[in-house]
């Protein structure tokens, strides 16, 4: 798939995200739209993620910010893990698509996440496991900026550097907003780059909506665990959702859904 084709696919993925959340009237659109390119580039360009491969042969992606499950599910459906029509069962009783990722239920989901701050620790366990087994498996963790306020996140970062996990890449979807408002107002994160460098990571900044920049960041070889500080826009692609904390966990009305889809499909 070319970068231009992937760019086009990201528009379709965004439409699917809006459709599913709008149809079932529940879910987190803002943070799903901000990590769309991050997940799409991972699953379509960077990771060994062919669903035909046995799970132990695939690279792993832990969606630490599990509330962005609609983005992950949509990417997995387009990648062939399950039928695209199933997306409309999101959050419904009996669905394989739970409100937050559940590895027991959903094909392609590599860990059960959603409780913030816990995902990177799981990724570190996977990275240690891959190293111990002598595989070249790559492990990715996609985190939100709000969840960096959890103490466990920093425990995990400390241990990634301690164990020298060069097979681990942490990608920060830095849209600057969390439920109660801007990160800086709720609990200031300070200088993220300097903090992660001090914790022993190679920090690479990228535009989190620029496929070329993301791919270049993924492919840069480093001596240390890698941290990609991806600058993103919450609600990206839908004019009335962009940069609005209020769209963190609110489903659009039928009218808003139509408007959003019109913008995305224009």
């Amino acid at each position, binding site marked *: 798939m070319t970068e231009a084709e992937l760019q086009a696919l990201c528009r379709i993925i965004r439409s699917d995200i809006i459709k599913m959340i709008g149809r079932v009237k529940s879910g987190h659109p803002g943070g799903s739209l901000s990590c769309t390119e991050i997940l799409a580039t991972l699953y379509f360009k960077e990771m060994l993620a062919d669903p035909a491969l046995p799970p*132990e042969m695939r690279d*792993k992606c832990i969606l630490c910010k599990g509330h962005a499950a609609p983005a992950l599910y949509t990417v997995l459906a387009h990648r062939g893990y399950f039928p695209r029509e199933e997306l409309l069962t999101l959050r419904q009783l009996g669905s394989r698509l739970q409100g937050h990722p*559940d*590895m*027991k239920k959903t094909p392609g989901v*590599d*860990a*059960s996440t*959603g*409780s913030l*701050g*816990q*995902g*990177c*620790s*799981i*990724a*570190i*366990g*996977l*990275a*240690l*496991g*891959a190293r*111990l*087994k002598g595989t070249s498996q790559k492990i990715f963790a996609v985190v939100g900026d709000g969840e960096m306020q959890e*103490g*466990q996140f920093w*425990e*995990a970062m*400390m*241990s990634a550097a*301690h*164990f020298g996990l060069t097979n681990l890449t942490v990608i920060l979807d830095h849209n600057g907003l969390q439920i109660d408002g801007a990160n800086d107002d709720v609990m200031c994160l300070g200088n993220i780059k300097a903090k992660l460098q001090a914790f022993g990571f190679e920090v690479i900044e990228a535009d989190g909506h620029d496929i070329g920049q993301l791919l270049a960041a993924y492919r840069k070889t480093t001596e240390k665990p890698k941290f990609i500080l991806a600058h993103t826009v919450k609600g990206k692609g839908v004019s009335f959702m962009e940069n609005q904390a209020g769209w963190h966990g609110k489903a659009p009305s039928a009218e808003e859904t139509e408007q959003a889809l019109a913008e995305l499909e224009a």
Partner: protein
Amino acid sequence: MGTLNIRGTKAIRVAYGEALAELGAERPDVVVLDADLAHATTTCVFGEKYPGRFFNLGIAEQNMMGVAAGLAISGLTPVASTFSIFGAGRAFEQVRNSICYANLNVTLALSHNGLTVGEDGGSHQSIEDISLMRSIPGMTVLVPCDAIEMRKALRAAIDHPGPVYIRVTRPPAPYFTEDDAPFTVGKANTLRPGADIAIIATGLMVYQALLAAEQLAQEDIEAAVLNMHTIKPIDRDAIIEAAGKTGRLITVEDHSVIGGLGSAVAEVLAEGSPARLVRMGLQDCFGQSGTPDALLEHYGLTARHIAENARKLVGDKQ
């Protein structure tokens, strides 16, 4: 059956470390995690023999639980240790969401719990761990009563699908169970028969229960003793049978009576077979500093206290 045969003294945690190192030779998939307490939990024995499969996470229990989950997802068999207060308490939600919600094969062998932590005092004496761990769907809870049973519990836990909590205790303690005694998850062992009353004990309290039964026998009170080494799934049949035979039960645990063995037995009785029940344990209070023996005496968890309760219960009925 019935005679207490003390064969030696060994801390259950020491037996844990030895058994873990043994398993390391047989099972290359076993990996061990600790949080800066490897000498206290005795996982250091494994760590010295298999440094490549031993991960010290530092004083960061929440991260340790997630790392254990990741290692399990990658197909390895992790065993994680720290003190119960930190592993079951501080990291409760990581155990619930990162490990149990995904039904991963992780064994949590957490030590230093109950009053027998001793001098470190109430802040470190976990008296809620059984309650917390048994409340999580899919979690199995094992409480070995001596060094011999500890070895069997560890093997059972590693072979058991899904997460398992093993309550490993700190102080040197007599070992008295037989090498060939069965250890089946969810199946209580009747160590002594008796028609007048049944004492259901777990962990180090099993020894006290056997001592109490010996005292009572001299007074012509025949007390059955059940070693409830599995708190979840609880052996309903054994409880209902004991209740049917004797009509009077005592539970004994070095743990709060809220949510632990006493609660588990009360739940079975209330739904299945009503009987008189006295729950011995911490009566909704914290512990304090002291030697383990002094604390058990102070909080009423010795053979003498068990025998007193048994006499009262038997007397009430007669």
